[in-house]
């Protein structure tokens, strides 16, 4: 076959080709490494005279170009057809996706992560203390010797005379002071227990958060900043906080922290009991006796303690009306988080 015939035949075959696969085969047959035209081109140097070599080159290259063009055009044509076909497939993008099982973290765990991250950014470290605690760490070393009437603030669950279920996370305080040297920046988000019958607002098992910061020159101004910082993270930038005097035997001065009700912004509504404010945290400057009990000199160092009840704060934040929902394992509740 001469070049012209090859070209003609190839072009007709390309025209007939109906699939990309056939087109690929034709490409190989004529233009591939061992393709007919490739071979003809390779044979050119063997022609005896220059003129023949020149004219053969022109003819073969022209045929090659024609075939390449035809292949490209046919390829485009096939792709367009395919595209048109894909565009006509029956499909409804709003059909629900295939179900993929995913679990959930408890809302209190998620809140714990949030609180921890918030204070980790300020360099506080998570610590733990026993739930079954001695009377000393829970009360005595916190400036509440036996028979101290302030113990009435905590209705405590006892195992024996000297062993109890800790009634607050403040049992970290003397333990951490004895373990470390100032500056001390620690926090704990953990369980506590009190003698309370279960109802929508009370639970014998609940969560507490405690922050302890001890260094030279720690002041109530730091306490104020930390309160503002945290409550804004929880309830939003426009949150306002205020301090009131409050008595806890292990701090002096002692402070009650209120947050402006996020629902009524202080006007008074059903959720805040028409007070406009939520009493949300308790705090104060660590009592010198407590610092001393921790083996640190209160003349050189001062400290702050700051704490709140995550159950209640989360209830306010999310509008949950029954604390028992946290502890009763109902998936209809848990899966919402």
């Amino acid at each position, binding site marked *: 076959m001469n070049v012209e015939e090859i070209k003609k035949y190839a072009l007709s075959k390309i025209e007939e080709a109906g699939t990309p696969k056939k087109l690929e085969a034709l490409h190989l047959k004529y233009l591939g490494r061992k393709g007919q035209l490739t071979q003809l081109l390779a044979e050119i140097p063997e022609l005896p005279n220059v003129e023949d070599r020149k004219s053969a080159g022109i003819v073969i290259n022209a045929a090659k170009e024609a075939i390449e063009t035809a292949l490209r055009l046919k390829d485009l044509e096939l792709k367009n057809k395919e595209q048109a076909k894909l565009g006509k497939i029956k499909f409804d993008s709003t059909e629900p996706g295939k179900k993929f*099982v*995913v*679990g*959930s*973290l*408890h809302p209190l*765990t998620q809140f714990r992560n949030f609180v921890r991250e918030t204070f980790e950014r*300020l360099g506080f*470290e*998570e610590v733990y203390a026993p*739930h*079954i605690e001695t009377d000393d760490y829970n009360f005595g070393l916190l400036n509440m010797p036996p*028979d*101290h*009437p*302030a113990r*009435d*603030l905590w209705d405590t*669950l006892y*195992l*024996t005379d000297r062993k109890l*279920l800790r009634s607050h996370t403040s049992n970290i305080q003397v333990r951490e002071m004895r373990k470390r*040297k100032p*500056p001390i*920046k620690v926090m704990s988000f953990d*369980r506590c227990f009190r*003698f309370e*019958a*279960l109802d929508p607002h009370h639970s*014998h*098992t609940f969560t507490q958060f405690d922050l302890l*910061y001890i260094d030279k020159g*720690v*002041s*109530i*101004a*730091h306490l*104020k*900043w930390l309160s503002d*910082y945290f409550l804004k993270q929880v309830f939003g930038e426009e949150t306002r906080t*205020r*301090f*009131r*005097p409050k*008595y806890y*035997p292990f701090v*002096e*001065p*002692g*402070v*009650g922290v209120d947050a402006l009700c996020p629902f009524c912004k202080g006007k008074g509504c059903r959720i805040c009991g028409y007070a406009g404010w939520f009493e949300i945290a308790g705090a104060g*400057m660590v*009592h*010198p006796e407590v610092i001393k009990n921790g083996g640190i000199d209160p003349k050189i160092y*001062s400290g702050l303690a700051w704490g709140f009840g995550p159950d209640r704060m989360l209830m306010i934040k999310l509008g949950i009306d029954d604390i028992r929902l946290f*502890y009763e*394992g*109902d*998936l209809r509740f848990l*899966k919402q988080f």
Partner: protein
Amino acid sequence: MLIPYSWLKEFVKLKASAEAVGEKLSLATIGVEEVKREGGEAIINLEVTYNRGDLLSILGVARELAALYNLNLQKEEEEFKPPANTQNLVIKSDKDLCGLYTLVLIKGLSCQETPDKMEKRLGHAGMRQINLLADITNYVMLEYGQPLHAFDATKIKKRDPSMSIEVRNAKRGEVIKTLDGLTRILEPSDIVIADRKGPIAIAGVMGGKDTEVEVGTKEVLLEAAIFNPIAIRRTSRRLGLRSEASIRFEHYLSPENLLKALNQAIKLYHLYGSGEVGGFGQIGKTKTTPEPVNLDATKLNSLLGTEISITEARQHLTRLGFKVMSSTKGLIAWPPHFRGDIKHEEDLIEEVARLHGYEDLPATAPCTIATDTPENIFEYLRNNLSKLLAGMGFNEVKTYPFLTTEALVHKGSGGLLKLRNPVSSEAEYLKDSDLLNILNAARKNAPRCEEGRLFELEKIYPKEGEYFALTALLWGIAEPYRTLKGVLEALLTKTHLNCDFAPAKDNLLHPSRTAKIIVNNKDVGIIGEVHPHLAKSYRLKDTALFELNLESLAKYARRWGIFTPIPPYPEVYEDFSFFFPYKKPLGPLLQKIKTLDRVIREVELADLFEQKGERSVTLRLTFQSDIKELSSEDLKPVREKVVKLIKKSGGKLRS
């Protein structure tokens, strides 16, 4: 403490509304429960805390408000001084039991009605009207904060003509019939007021029926005392008798205040009952000797983060009744007699801060870095394993730390820690495993969920010591044991630990399908199918559970593994199918095959089924060399080694 507002205004000329005064008190002094209105009277309900016993009185609140508003206190009784030639009453007491004991004999009383104003005020303050003679003691207690007790002197004289009153500890087995008509058996730690015949009152807690004042009482022996607060507290708690009086006795009381209260009571007995003082006796200290407290100006401002001048501090303290003197570093302050709570410099600082205004304190960011903060692998595990489990479809629950009575039926209470004062029988024993609690949570959801996955990460309380356990449970899933084991193995790969399993027994788990989890030769937990009987009683099917001691695991776990280079040569896969008897453990065989030859990269269980009571196993081996592309010829000796090992271990190759 309920404070009728009009009563308060007798002591201090307040112009603001009761609500505004309540707000002021809550921002500068103490918690206010509410301000309510009742029968034309505004009543402020104060949440008085232990440190501020002085606020358990109208006078005390008036003093505080006078300081807050910078007003004068209108009237305050003088301290009682007996008229000349008053008969001396002999009293015996002990200063450890009673700091000050006073008795006034009031004679010539005529029976009269309690005035309306007094009755109304008692009602508004939450007290019951009894009769004039008793009402006066309550009225003065509310006004001055000093509890008083009126004995019928005629009745005492009948018992003991000498009227020899003694403050002493009760004798073992001594009894007294109290005002409420009950007979009380006393303990030696109780303090009693006694005459020669025996106790006539349980000090600070309740008077005796025998010497009760009545409408016709002509002579009253009026007692005002400061008892040992701890003894009063113990006795009142033991007897379950907490009264307005006993609560005040638990707080700090001042002798000066006592004598003022006494004077006021005597005046009222005279005014409303025509009574006259006919005798007086006292034993103990009648003056407070306040300890001076230093206030250092630098300390004041470093603790508050402020720049308050000593002049300002001095003004605040003076308004609050402190005697103040300058010192080189700041000032020295002597607390007023009614403030027993001021002992430390910090106490003075709080007083200054309160009057300066908490609102006006600055806010400063804490900038110190704590340096000694090593990585906490337990926290890492806690967070990451929880997230992994949630990703694998497990929902985290939180359950109570107690075992319910129902759970105790399954488990028995032996070996469990027990509370001495449980809230209820449903919260009496501490759980030593989460099994029954998480099972209970599963049951609650089972009616709506044919299958489910739960986990809990909380402390459990075995007798040997509490620890954080990670407990996971699934139900309604085929092959629950192997499914859950897969979950456990996936979690453990993230701790870079190898773990082994060995048969174990647990009464609540399946007698066969249960294993302990071993890491570094230590038991770190248990995995098993829940015993079918137990599962059935919790209305669950195909239920398995594991419980890991997360604290033990944290001791061995590593956050980072070590990188193994990926060879450039292709992997070759081959399956080995064989029968393997149940009495031979499959796990160790896989481990052994893995170490047979360097080119064996992976040994996986590809298939497992039972055929005519025989266990059929297919293992898929991945071969790969670091140095060349493996040919079938290369693998021949390895293949032979694998087959030999399988046979040696008891396997029978399937054709």
